[in-house]
């Protein structure tokens, strides 16, 4: 077995979450992260539509049409939760209080540019809160497949797709590796099982620093 599954990517990402952190989780793989948090790590999950302290999906009897996450799904809240309006919600993001935003991507560049909201020629759905999140969160973590469905690298020298933010990504976790965006370039922190430097470089569209080289 080469590389990580979606669940294993989430499991690896969960290691980066510490007790007491405020975290915004985007749709897709990031929503799997809470399942992999140890019991002694209490993380407050933010939903940009106005919740701190998002819990699991609710019991049938507790479903409330007025209580949804940013993906429009019914949710529950944890003890100590709070509700607020959308301006307050984005104030805590832009104001730098959100410790971490975890989201997916179409492309990430060597300089940490992120493209995850629009593909020319395809119908634009709007960026929602993604541009605010990456501009404001203290740290931005991208979880994605290393290559797109056409087999092209998603980590590139310069994004060809419209940007969500420029120089905003701190770390990328893919099915193949954990890669940090540094001032010197993309630095490989960890390989997924069965992945080596040669293979990773052949599937990445930008230079990688591996073991300092």
């Amino acid at each position, binding site marked *: 077995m080469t590389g990580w599954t979606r669940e294993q990517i989430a499991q690896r990402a969960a290691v980066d979450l510490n007790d007491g952190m405020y975290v915004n989780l985007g749709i897709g793989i990031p929503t799997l992260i809470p399942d992999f948090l140890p019991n002694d790590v209490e993380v407050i999950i933010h939903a940009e539509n106005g919740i701190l302290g998002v819990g699991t999906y609710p019991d049938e009897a507790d479903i*409330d049409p007025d209580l949804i996450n940013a993906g429009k799904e019914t949710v529950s809240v944890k003890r100590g939760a709070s509700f607020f309006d959308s301006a307050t919600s984005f104030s805590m993001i832009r104001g730098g209080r959100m410790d971490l935003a975890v989201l997916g991507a179409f492309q990430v560049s060597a300089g940490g540019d992120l493209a995850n909201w629009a593909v020319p020629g395809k119908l634009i759905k709007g960026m929602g809160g993604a541009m605010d999140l990456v501009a404001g969160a203290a740290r931005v973590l991208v979880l994605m497949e290393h290559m797109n469905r056409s087999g092209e690298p998603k980590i590139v020298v310069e994004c060809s797709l419209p940007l969500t933010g420029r120089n905003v990504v701190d770390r990328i976790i893919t099915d193949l590796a954990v890669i940090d965006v540094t001032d010197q370039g993309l630095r490989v922190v960890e390989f997924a099982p069965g992945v080596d430097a040669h293979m990773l470089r052949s599937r990445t569209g930008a230079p990688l620093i591996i073991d300092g080289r």
Partner: protein
Amino acid sequence: MDKVSSSAADAVADIGTGASLAVGGFGWCGVPTVLIEAIRDAGATDLEVVSNNCGADGWGLAILLAERRISRVVASFFGDNREFARQYLQGELEVEITPQGTLAERLRAAGAGIPGFFTPTGVGTLVEQGGLVWRFDHEGNAAVVSPAKPVRTFVRAGKAQQFLLEEALPTDFAIVRAALGDRHGNLVFHASAKNFNPLAAMAGRITIAEVERLVEPGEIDPDLVHLPGIFVDRIVELTPEQVAAKQIEKRMVKGMVKR
């Protein structure tokens, strides 16, 4: 003082053709559906709507879209709305695509008397550079695109950083949904149905709130008022049937597999 209107129809009677409307709600949550239906019934057209989303097929603002009563929308996300996409792509609807937090702040700023503000959101993207397609022509070419935005450098946390200028978004009217309201217009929202409602209410020159429960002034603890009545001009009390008509877009229960 009594801001209660005799009916939803009465409350929206002066919303005329060409009016701009700030509308509360996120997805299907906290949407003033009864006032939207009243506007549809009243017949105003060529409306400009400011709302995070624009309803879904057959629900919320989509019922105004379906009748081609909206000519321009300011929104952050409009996936999952086929009629919206069709009208946008065929040049029938102008869409000002705006980041969600910027949209919220533009409404808040309008209500707060602040004509514009600098934000880091969108710096280095098409939001700053311009070129987002607001309107297509009937052949599918870009007819109106967003302008470039002024950029300034400020020092924040000891670091020089770029910010772009966004302008406030005042509207002629605002329509919002609240869980609880009194005759003075004080409002209380429930859970995540608060979302854009207080901000839309602040941005409207005339603000109309539909409330799921109406009480007398004094019955809401002043400590617990979410939006002071000064921002609300008219109140419409919903019937139990109208309250019960609330819908859920993605009904998830414990144990379901996450997507």
